[in-house]
């Protein structure tokens, strides 16, 4: 199986609501940017993957059919991949296998969400079992908050530690032209913000966003034809566990830890804290970033609060996490997982502009979705 390279990336300038375009318009924008980055036309593309969040977010079923003309993809194979919050990443995984397996030389993966169209929390409740639990569900926020509270006791993931995540990510977002949240907050601001599903408070929650991202993937041996700065996917995995499996702990993210073991073995990562130059992870609420530090092996279980407090994960620290601002800066859910991969590729190719981690050549891109039961990881490198 060949290695896969990212030869073009693009994303929209994410916003709270893009009133000027409909879904196809949004998708086209990101796709055109990625194609331009790869110096390709749609006619050069063999296959298209459209990744979008649950259809109830924007009320159009089978949206991949709606966007075909806007993409200029008539006559090409087009599939839709959807996987909750992990959608964008799962779309990339689908494209990855088309290339690595030899079915396509150049694949365009475009991921989007237009969350301003609908009622997000109510839509999310419809993802639950109608027989058992839907009537009590509080989106993803309710259970995420509940297990954060449990992790406070067992792992020391304090409200203050989570607040530091918010401060860091919003500060980083100010350097990211694609992020739309442009405010500076203090730990105190976060701690005093209105509880929504305590311990999750208003400032622990990412924005609701409209946005799209796209990548062009090709085989490693073809990459040099298209760019001087390819980013290589050294390893990629996406794992699931059942939402309601016996003894599901929610203390450690087992699917993420499993994906990390697989990917680290494939990529030669034995000391993630020391080897990675930068990490982009998808934190649907601030508490998850703490949990991911541990599940990714950046620190031992129970060490996340200390890690964030040390400053190591800030810009300028030895393991910057979310230089893009993460989900706190922009959160078009269906695209967020692909945005992490796009940002990782930008970092290792030295093209992240004002939020560049100097000298970065090896990055981790993490994603997650579902009821915290879908988790993925990719290792992206400059060589």
């Amino acid at each position, binding site marked *: 199986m060949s290695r896969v390279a990212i030869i073009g990336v693009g994303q929209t300038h994410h916003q709270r609501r893009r009133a000027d375009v409909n879904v196809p318009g949004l998708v086209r924008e990101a796709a055109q940017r990625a194609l331009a980055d790869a110096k390709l036309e749609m006619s050069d593309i063999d296959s298209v993957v459209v990744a979008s969040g649950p259809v109830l977010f924007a009320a159009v079923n089978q949206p991949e059919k709606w966007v075909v003309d806007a993409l200029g993809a008539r006559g090409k194979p087009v599939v839709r991949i959807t996987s909750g919050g992990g959608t964008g990443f799962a779309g990339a995984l689908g494209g990855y296998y088309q290339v690595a397996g030899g079915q396509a030389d150049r694949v365009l993966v475009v991921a989007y969400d237009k969350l301003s169209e609908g009622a997000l929390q*109510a839509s999310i409740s*419809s993802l639950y079992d109608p027989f058992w639990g839907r009537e009590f569900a509080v989106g993803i926020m*309710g259970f995420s908050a509940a297990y954060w509270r449990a992790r406070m006791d067992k792992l020391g993931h304090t409200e203050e530690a989570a607040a530091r995540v918010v401060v860091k990510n919003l500060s980083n977002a100010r350097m990211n032209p694609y992020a739309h949240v442009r405010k500076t907050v203090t730990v105190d601001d976060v701690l005093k913000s209105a509880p929504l599903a305590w311990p999750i408070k208003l400032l622990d929650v990412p924005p609701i966003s409209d946005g799209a991202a796209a990548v062009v993937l090709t085989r490693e041996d073809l990459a040099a034809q298209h760019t001087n700065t390819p980013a290589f996917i050294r390893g990629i995995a996406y794992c699931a566990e059942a939402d309601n499996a016996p003894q599901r702990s929610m203390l450690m993210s087992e699917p993420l830890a499993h994906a990390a073991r697989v990917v680290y073995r494939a990529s030669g990562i034995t000391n993630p804290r020391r080897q990675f130059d930068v990490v982009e992870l998808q934190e649907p609420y601030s508490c998850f970033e703490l949990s991911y530090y541990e599940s990714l092996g950046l620190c031992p279980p129970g060490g996340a609060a200390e890690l964030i407090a040390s400053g190591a994960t800030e810009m300028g620290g030895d393991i910057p996490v979310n230089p893009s601002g993460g989900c706190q800066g922009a959160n078009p859910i269906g695209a967020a997982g692909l945005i992490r991969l796009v940002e990782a590729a930008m970092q290792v190719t030295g093209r992240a502009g004002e939020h560049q981690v100097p000298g970065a050549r090896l990055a981790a891109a993490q994603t997650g979705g579902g009821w915290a039961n879908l988790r993925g990881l990719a290792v992206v490198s400059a060589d």
Partner: protein
Amino acid sequence: MHLAPDTVPLDLPPLQSTIALPYRLTPGKATGTFLAELAARRIVGTRCLRCQRVEVPAQDVCSCGHAELEFVAVSTVGTLQSYTRMPDKTLGLIRLDGCDCDLLHRLHGDHEWAVGQRLQACWSDSPQAQALDLLGFEPAGQGAMAGLAPAAFEASREPLDSMATELKLHYQHAAGPYYGRLFDEMRTSGRIMGIRCSHCQSTLLPPRELCDVCYERTGTWADVADTGVLQAFSIIHLKFIGQRRDPPYVYAEVMLDGASTKIIHMLDGVDIEAAPARLKPGMRVKAVWKAERKGSLDDISHFELIDPI
């Protein structure tokens, strides 16, 4: 399907459920212009500056893949290409004069229809900035202007940038034998039953055919107590559509005694102000049942702490 020996399939009536969600859709510039101009009794299309194709309704991207387009006002008269009758409406494909594609729309009024027939637009008397401001198409009158070419377009009003709509989806979910027995026992006996994995012996609630961890078949049914441990909780202040109770309230994840999987529910009888400091995962809770049971998780009204704080 494998059934445990002491299970009898039950034919419970399906669960009726409705997903009702409001939306503010963004039409984009072309559709927004098309929709807005209907109130002015104009049908707006686009001409592609690359391939010259005239498409209606107006498009943001031509089917040739390019986005250099100009808006045009097209003829409101055209020829019926095809049609289909349905119980409540008749739809037709209409080739408006000067256009390169067919417009799908209603055929309006009680008329005879025939392929090749000349039709003209008919309009709502009280336009509301929505698609049906154009009611549909009816047989063209004697005075209908034929063969009008698409004309240069000047917007008469702002394009719509938001369209309010609602999705209302009705479902009938088959319960199957596992939910079937669970709910039957809850309703008739106030008894909660899980099912054990034949391999790891975990008791799964709700009962199911396969264990999520072992992938082995489940076997024996087992009683699960209506007391258990509060595994996790959060205090809900957020309001959202479809919420069954006004906040604030406590969202609870409970591991019932005898079960290996959690259930989600609500916890009452706790002072919301005091809860962050005093409520803790690990506390023991018990179910409070409704007086009248219908066979659902909702038969449990809420949970309470066994030892109040």
